[in-house]
């Protein structure tokens, strides 16, 4: 049962990702991406990370994708690609490289030592909010704090970038 679930979600995830890349309409690709994120969230549940699954759905699918959709709507950029391709060899080269990358990673994964699977038993509650938060606020306290600074910078940056021109104080007086 579990493998069946895994396989279907995996296929859905990959299909959604491909659709996202290939669809011409930006909104469609956004929606496909949301589908992808949800399927990955399901996989999280399989991987004993229920809390993260929830976070994934709410933050990624919820917040970020909504922002995307909002901006697409704002700029009306559904089918932005009007002009013809300026760099002709880009698309085929991209595909070939993608395939090459995949082949290499596949080969690496195949040749790499088979990952030992930890006994299932004690892996039960690693995903529980309590253990995560315990670790988060003890060993990983420092990154946590710095992430807050990072987000602050992002906010300040967004404000700076989108504000209309600020007239210098001297100019205003003159």
């Amino acid at each position: 049962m579990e493998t069946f679930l895994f396989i279907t979600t995996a296929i859905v995830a990959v299909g959604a990702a491909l659709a996202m890349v290939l669809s011409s309409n930006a909104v469609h690709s956004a929606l496909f991406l949301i589908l992808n994120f949800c399927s990955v969230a399901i996989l999280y549940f399989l991987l004993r990370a229920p809390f993260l699954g929830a976070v994934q759905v709410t933050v990624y699918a919820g917040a970020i994708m909504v922002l995307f959709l909002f901006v697409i709507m704002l700029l009306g950029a559904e089918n932005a690609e009007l002009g013809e391709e300026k760099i002709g060899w880009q698309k085929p080269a991209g595909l070939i490289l993608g395939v090459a990358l995949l082949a290499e990673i596949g080969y690496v994964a195949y040749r790499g030592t088979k990952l030992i699977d930890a006994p299932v038993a004690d892996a039960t509650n690693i995903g529980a909010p309590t253990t995560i938060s315990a670790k988060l606020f003890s060993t990983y306290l420092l990154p946590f704090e710095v992430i807050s600074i990072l987000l602050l910078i992002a906010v300040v940056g967004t404000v700076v970038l989108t504000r209309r021109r600020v007239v210098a104080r001297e100019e205003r007086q003159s």
Partner: protein
Amino acid sequence: MNDLTFITPEINWTVLGMPAFLMIWAMLVLIVDMFTSDRRVLITLSLIGLGVTAALGALDYGLTVSGFSDMLVFDQFGVLVNWILLAGTALTLLIAFDYMPRQNLNQGEFYPLVLFATSGMLFLVQATDLVTIFIGVETLSIALYVLTGFAVPQFKSGEAAIKYLLLGGFAAGFLVYGIALIYGMTGKTNLAQIATELSTWQSTGKALDDPILLAGVGFVLIALGFKVSMFPFHAWTPDVYEGAPTPVTAYMSVATKGAAFAAMLRFLNVAFPALKPEWQLLFGLFAAATMIYGNIVAVAQSNLKRMLAYSSIAHAGYMLLGVLAASEKGISAFTVYLLAYTLTNLGAFAVLIALENRGMPVFELKDLRGLGKRSPWLAVSMTVFMFSLAGVPPTAGFASKFGIFRAAWDANLDYLAIIGVITSVVSAFFYLRVIVTMWMRDAEATEPQPTYATASLSLGVLVAVIGIVAVGLLPNIFTDLAKALVLTVAQ
């Protein structure tokens, strides 16, 4: 469930001192900025902040302490590089002080953003855990994306920022994937623990060059390589350096490289000394390509900012030599090189800033014509910077290059030293062209460009020149400092 005792982590202020203080100070400046948009207040505050941070580092200089479950370390190497970064930032602020209004970029947020970026760098320099490295890199990058796009009304700056962000994100993807693979294989994120893990592997006879682990290391190095504009991943540098406002370009070319190299140094020397044969060869080739590409394309440039961009790519190649030497000599040579490079590059950009007037983004070589007559002292200092970049003896550039090539030769990367030496001859080609235009070609008939060598900028240039001559003539002060790097890095 509630038997999980919550072990409150002991916060060790010495380790955290420098980056944390600067972050808090940056927020303070941000708040002050809300009330007054008087540039003089903001810049004095920022300089005070930088000064205090540097003082914090000096308080217990000799110590080597690691804190936060070894995520951060406070050692001489870290403090030294931090000092250089702080000096670089201070110089940038000095230079940028009157550039901004001239380009009507009056948003006050410039200073807090710069401080935030610098704090990110300090954080990255002291990081000895993959997570902290990742977060340090990202903090620094986000701040720089914003700074690059600071002059957004000018399309050039926006274009540079979006290019930088896209490729930055792309690299971040690889960084995370790399970290994931390394974590997957070793189960550890802390560099020292990874090293012990690998030694246990060795003792248990497990093959060290496991492809997945190598792939992980490769991906992380790619991401850091992107940050320092190593050859295949350098493509963003020229466009971003040309697009971004000049002080930001100066800041990026100097500080980001320093921090990223420090992280790379720790990553390679602490975590993966065992895999040296693998990464030294491949990234040696990349270093050679960087040196060659950077210098040769710079020759074909007529725009000064792009030329300095390519020269910074070339210098990244030279610094990479120091990093790849992975020996004590290499680290001390890298530190001296970083200092010399910081002073020289900031000085060169300062002169550019003095000459760039309102709304004229593109900066052609011929605008420098006859500078020797118009403002001799500016021309003299630019000559010193050019000779230092080319590595012509009495300047700091030479002493640092000497150290780097010596370290490379010692780590029998002799082919790299030879390529480095040849490419520095190629580099002399275009540095000389700048000097020729300044002194030997007389200005065109059109009215000469006004120069804005204001007080703060001249101070910055003066500091740079004195620094270069000092390092050039007395490198021993800095090599002794750098030599005593008993640090977690170089077991």
